[in-house]
């Protein structure tokens, strides 16, 4: 097995120290940082995301993998920056809607989107409609992702979607929603472009909205 495949496997097993060692080994063997990042680290996270989506693994395994991937990515950072940075495949605005301070699910989505090479701007929790809209305009986002755990805060998702339609981003920015209380039916009702039932599905759906990925 070549080193890139080993990195990919090691990320899946969530072995942080091993990933660091393998990334060093890969660089010593002459692999480019792009290959190590995309074919090693990100490829490993893609498998993990799929397994998580299919409920073959749960949050602990997923987070350990994400931690391992991040550790490997950190090693590559000087090289990435020295080459003008990795070109992100898209920009995603993320946030938990107004009145809701639950952030676990959103943070998982954040980790996994970054693990898929996307630029993520996380607005945090209790995010107002204006804040979502302003960030989307300012950063020229392709995707706005919203999370809500409380049913009482779900109406804010609709408010953001409606507000985005009144901006120049209308038709260009796509919306995706998720969170314990949210359903596909609700997404359809409020006109969201996608719904994700968990963080793994979130990555898949975001990639699909952006027209990238292997599906």
């Amino acid at each position, binding site marked *: 097995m070549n080193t890139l495949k080993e990195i990919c496997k090691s990320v899946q097993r969530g072995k942080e120290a091993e990933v660091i060692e393998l990334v060093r080994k890969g660089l010593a063997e002459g692999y480019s940082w792009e290959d190590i990042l995309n074919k090693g680290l990100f490829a490993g996270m893609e498998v993990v995301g799929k397994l998580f989506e*299919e*409920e*073959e*693994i*749960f*949050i*602990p*395994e997923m*987070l*350990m993998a994400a*931690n391992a991937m991040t550790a490997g990515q950190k090693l590559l950072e000087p090289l990435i920056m020295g080459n003008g940075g990795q070109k992100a495949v898209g920009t995603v605005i993320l946030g938990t809607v*107004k*009145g809701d*301070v*639950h*952030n*676990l699910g959103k*943070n998982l989505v954040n980790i996994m989107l970054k693990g898929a090479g996307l630029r993520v701007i996380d607005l*945090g*929790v*209790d995010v107002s409609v204006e804040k979502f809209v302003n960030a989307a305009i300012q950063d020229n986002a392709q995707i706005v992702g919203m999370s809500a*755990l*409380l*049913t*009482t*805060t*779900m*109406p*804010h998702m*609709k408010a953001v979607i409606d507000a985005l339609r009144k901006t120049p981003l209308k038709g260009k920015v796509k919306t995706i929603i998720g969170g*314990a*209380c949210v*359903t596909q*039916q*609700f997404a359809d*009702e*409020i006109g969201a472009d996608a719904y994700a039932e968990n963080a793994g599905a979130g990555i898949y759906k975001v990639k699909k909205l952006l027209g990238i990925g292997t599906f």
Partner: protein
Amino acid sequence: MAIHLRERLRNTNEVLLHYPPLHSMLADWGKDLESNLSQWIVDHPEKYQDALRQAFEAGCDFAGTQTQAASPWRAEPFGLRDKIRELNYQSAKLARQVTPPDRYVLGHVSITNPDFLKPLGNLTYEEVYEGFKEQMLPLLEGGVDVFLIVGNQTDAGEIATKVAKDICDLPIIFQNVFYATKKGFRTMLGLTPEEASLRAEKAGADVVGGSCGLMTKSLDPSEWYPGATSLVKEMRRACSQYLSIQPDAGIATLVEGKTIYPVPPKAMATEVTHWVDAGARIVGGCCGTSLEHYRKIAKILKDRGLRRG
């Protein structure tokens, strides 16, 4: 409190009715969507107490302090970090004032933290211990009879249980949140009902339970409460403590700006006897459960001789 909860569970065959989920009910009492629930309660003491009185009339044996959002982590984003003491003490005191002698005030502690404990996240054991202690001391001082530890993170729940045992001798109800997955029920951290319940029991909980979550992967509301019955059975297999169950009333949908829960009171009343047969001693519903749901269960339990009054 006329009879201590532990004695009541030990010496009678009564099935007790859980606290009303005011966090999803208070919209009808004028609670806006944005504010922190604890702050709202402290700002609207009459409305909170009125809601509790109505809940007692409907048959609830417990009043919750509804202080889920009054832990240091959850209050902080609302700018309420320096009001932990006041919010928790006041909610407990307000509940105490209207709780009849044969009912109980639950000190509500959420174990759905904004981050995970190490090594998955950044929170340390000490931080979490001190955070819960900061919240639970004023709840105790405000007069709670029982601690209710509920949420997604079983490991944080173990710490909250330890705090409760270190600061008092009150009974502890420890409810994990479960989700129906392809592999069966799991907590957010991937524990089975057996694993999570055993950990709650070992931590020292008097009552071990399940709440909220996803009772079935199917969207058919008629399968929702039977899902809860399966969950009770699975918890029973693993642990020997008293059991509680408190599922949501299905998955909410938004209709004309209002959140509507699909599972009606009648469905709950039909199924609740199965929860009891499976071993549940405290029954109720979480998000979306109305007082009408509670009235229906109270009647069924009374008809079966499992409830006084």
